[in-house]
């Protein structure tokens, strides 16, 4: 399984990629493989406030709905509308085309508290 080195991770299996002060977030390869084929993504609303570890959106497989937690506190700046037509992007390319949202106004302290790729791999026992 792949876990990009320059990304940050949470114990809830979300990833964060910082670009300036905007965080792009999604779910990890491990998370998508556990969830199975996704058939629906209930995207967050642009402009919505999200709290770290609070529910950001819901992804659904044929079998079940699962919450995706926000890795950081901030404001949803944009969402990946391509997921509406093709939720499978998360399964196929979880770290690139499968991104879920961009979050602005995030705190440096929260980012510093996220896991590195090595720490996340250790958490998974990989």
């Amino acid at each position, binding site marked *: 399984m792949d876990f990009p080195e320059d990304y940050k991770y949470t114990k809830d299996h979300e990833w964060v990629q910082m670009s300036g002060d905007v965080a792009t977030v999604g779910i990890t390869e491990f998370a998508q493989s556990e969830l*199975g*084929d996704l*058939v*629906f993504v*209930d995207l967050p609303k642009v402009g919505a406030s999200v709290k770290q570890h609070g529910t950001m959106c*819901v992804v*659904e*497989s*044929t*079998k*079940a*709905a699962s919450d995706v937690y926000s890795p950081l506190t901030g404001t949803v700046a944009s969402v990946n509308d391509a997921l*509406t037509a093709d939720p*499978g992007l998360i*399964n196929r390319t979880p770290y690139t085309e499968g991104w879920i949202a961009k979050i602005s106004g995030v705190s440096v302290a929260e980012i510093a508290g996220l896991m590195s790729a090595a720490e996340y791999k250790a958490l998974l026992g990989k």
Partner: protein
Amino acid sequence: MKRTPLYDEHLRLGGKMVEFAGWEMPVQYSGVVAEHVAVRERVGLFDVSHMGEIWVTGSSAERALELLTCNRVSALYDGKAQYSALLNDQGGVIDDIIIYRFSSERYLLCVNASNADRDFEWLVSRNTTDAVITNVSAEYGQIAVQGPRAIELLAPLVRSCDLTQVKSFHFVETEILGTNVIIARTGYTGEDGVEIFVPSSKTVDIWRLLLEHGEPYGVVPCGLGARDSLRLEAALPLHGHELAPDISALESGLGWIIKFDKGEFIGRQALLAQREQGLKRKLVGLFLTDAGIARQGDTVDSIDGRGAVGVVTSGTKTPTVQRALAMALVDNSVSTVDTKVSCVVRGRTIGAVVVSLPFYRRAR
């Protein structure tokens, strides 16, 4: 947790194992969508060894089953199978079953995994004849081969009979690899195909043969995830969802297998009374018209402010129909096709419309 004879095969094939009705079963191998599509377009293999098998034998077997089940047992003949149900005295569904007639004195009942022990105890306790009822669930493995290429795949492996001549809801006793098997033209996917009863000890050999020999036909092993999305598109009811002891068999759409004129059977009096008073609820299909997926237990609301008018029994977005769809048990007032309703999904109200069932019907 219980394991089928194919447990090690599932692990070897990368099956993701989950608990289902006390059994450790694969929910998927390659992915629910790919497996679902394989069954619609080619052929898929399912381990259904967790299903229960119960023999009813003896000269009173037919009389016993007429009383214990709701469909007309006397309509069966040797080699014929029949969809039926065990009802309680209130007319609710204890289980839905298939009855296979081997002779006028030998009938095999195939029952749901989660209900097998309860069904057996209930059959024994309510049997008023000297028919002998035996739970042989542990003796049989069961493999479902489902999809448009299922018969083509199997025919060369079955030399003693012509499978193409075995019609829907018929079965044969034959051989695969020198092993005695029962092949029934039945299934739970809405596609053509068979369910094969094999001795437990030979299940692995036959599973491997089917996978190996099926490769040119594009066969893939399929898990419970695909089984559920396939049966839902075909609107085949699932016990614990559409069928339950506290849902009347008439309300859940089993009216076509309830033979009031065959004489007394368990549940008949209650169902007659319900029919006379008129049914209050009906099982319907829904398409969701707003984004979202309704699932079992979600409330169905009226759109004219009358509040709750029903409950979702099964729902997801399925690979072939490619829409969020559901089956729901609703008030008669909203059961007509094209009626607009709404579903309450995690506190959010989502539009839906009543549609006719099934959602998917294969071309014949």
